[in-house]
């Protein structure tokens, strides 16, 4: 039983990690909580669904993920161009970013509601059998796929940020964009790069969440809250912290729901977040971000 719940918790944590990282990566560079990421996930889930439904023969899931990731990049850059770029240009307060992203997210959900209503849509079945056994543990194939894709993606992302020049530039811009510019870093390019990465994560998350939970307008938005909590617990802007917190949150949530029931679970997660903000505001990662909510 313990191992079963642990595995399910890790799987749930992988879902949260994907969302939290998409959230954290924008925060790390631009220092604002990009709530529009949830809306982007929902749009990508719909794009993936219609891609799978309309293209004949039905493309493999990895092709769909690739396609939605590309769409995610385009939409993310478009969003930056029409909303965030002008805020940057005008050197407007950070609050403008936050309010804009929240508004965009609400608009996206509302538009999806108008066109598709809240009725869930289901991706075609990916597996003929949904689970397999390892000893006494029943393992969901879908969960396993999400776990593997998430881990691979997160490892690649951490490698990109920690071991490449682009990653170094991203870290430099995240610390001080003006000084970075003086040192020859094209900070605008780095910001576009950051949004592109967030777009890829939205594309991947959209398809995977759509496959697991079905597609509906507030799919991304509803999961975004957990991503945000993980991001805060991990230390806003810290990718490693967000990933660790997401897995921790998934595991705690699974055990808490099993023992205490689901109704108190949201209370527990918010209490954990508040405790972190009071006791250890720098989060698990230990990296302090002044702009914490």
């Amino acid at each position: 039983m313990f191992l079963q719940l642990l595995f399910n918790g890790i799987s749930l944590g992988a879902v949260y990690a994907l969302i939290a990282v998409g959230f954290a990566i924008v925060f790390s560079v631009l220092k604002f909580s990009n709530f529009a990421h949830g809306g982007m996930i929902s749009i990508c889930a719909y794009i993936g669904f219609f891609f799978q439904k309309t293209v004949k023969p039905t493309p493999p899931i990895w092709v769909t993920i690739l396609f939605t990731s590309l769409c995610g990049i385009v939409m993310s850059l478009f969003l930056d161009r029409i909303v965030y770029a002008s805020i940057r240009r005008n050197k407007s307060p950070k609050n403008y970013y936050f309010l804009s992203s929240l508004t965009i997210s609400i608009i996206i959900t509302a538009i999806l509601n108008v066109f598709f209503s809240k009725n869930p849509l289901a991706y075609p079945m990916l597996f003929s059998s949904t689970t397999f056994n390892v000893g006494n543990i029943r393992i969901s194939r879908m969960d396993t796929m999400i776990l593997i894709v998430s881990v691979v993606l997160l490892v690649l992302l951490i490698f990109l940020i920690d071991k490449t020049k682009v990653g170094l530039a991203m870290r430099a811009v995240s610390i001080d964009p003006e000084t970075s510019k003086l040192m020859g870093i094209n900070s605008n390019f780095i910001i576009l790069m950051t949004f592109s990465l967030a777009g890829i994560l939205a594309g991947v998350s959209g398809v995977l969440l759509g496959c697991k939970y079905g597609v509906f307008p507030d799919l991304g938005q509803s999961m975004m809250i957990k991503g945000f909590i993980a991001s805060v617990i991990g230390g806003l802007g810290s990718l490693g912290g967000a990933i660790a917190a997401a897995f921790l949150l998934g595991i705690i949530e699974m055990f808490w729901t099993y023992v205490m029931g689901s109704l108190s679970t949201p209370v527990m997660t918010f209490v954990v977040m508040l405790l972190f903000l009071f006791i250890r505001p720098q989060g698990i990662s230990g990296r302090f971000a002044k702009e914490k909510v």
Partner: protein
Amino acid sequence: MKKLLTCLLVLVLAFSLFASGAEEKSNDGPIKIGSIMDLTGGASNMGRPHSWGVEYAIKKVNEAGGINGRQIELYTQDCKNDITEGLNAYHKLVDEIGVCAIIGPALSNPASAWVDLSAEDKIPIVGHFMDEVCTTNPDTGAVYPYMFLAEPSCSVQSYDMAAYALAELGLKKYAVLYNPSNAFAKAHAEPFIAYVKENGGEVTAVETMGWADRDYSAQAIKITNSGAEAVFLCDYLAQNLISYDALRDAGFKGAILGANTLAPPLADQVKNDVYDVYFLQNYDMLNPNVGIINELVFSEMAATGTESPQCNVGFAWDAVQVLVEAMKKAKDPTDGEEVAKLLEQTTGVLLSSGDTISIDPATHRPNNMGMYIATYDENHNMVICGREDIY
């Protein structure tokens, strides 16, 4: 001069008030009826066919001569399965448009907010809001004078499902997984649990989820370990899809029982094999030999492109028939008080199922309607497998 102007103003106001009153009380003009449905909210997969059904039924009534020669004008509002939106829709219809009666949705959350308003405004509302709190006061048992239900209530439906599972399926151990914040689910789950306990069954687990929850695997594992032979699901389609897959993924091999929200397209949308699923149905809607329900659902599918048959088309037809029959008997069909009195005496009104409905004046709910029990065959087609007649 000022006095003259004041007198003229008073005269104009008095005349306009008289004129508008005369128009409302006109005995030969069209009759304004409202329809409040979930067109874009969480239950719009049911609300849209429901709304289509109301329009279709009204069209047929008008083609047949209307209500004692008077045509019906239908005004539809979207309540988005939300209490506030439902109140806005009600006020728009009653205060701005001036409807004299309303066909309500198959949703208890918004409908429960109209119980007092409808009494104040004397607006009869006939609908499929199955939670009994929409028709009778849960504390006093007193009936809400203008609220009328045109199908068995949630409690009756849950009793029917439990009775079928106990007697026909021979199951003894049950679990329930539901969202207590959903009035529809709560109104099903509690009577189901009560009936099972009172009739020799055992409830091994009662697990819950919230609106924002997306992962029910912890609940599913707990239910599976509880030794339940069947699980009762009574939320909307979105939650039922996740519940079904979570339970099967957790290794639950028993029967899945449920409300009419387990009906198609559930079988085509879940990821696990579909077996041992039993759910409530108001109609034998795929049978062309009973009533006109089959004709209705397939007309709606052809007209709107809906991919699976929706019983809400029949709900709409039935509610319109109940209201129209009462209005036809009224001296003034726009007099809400008179129509409400006549609705209380409803008996023998022919429904789309081919059966008739009688309304109990003490509850404003039907007192002669049972429920079908349906299942899925290996091709995911819905098949009627039983009927229970607990009123």
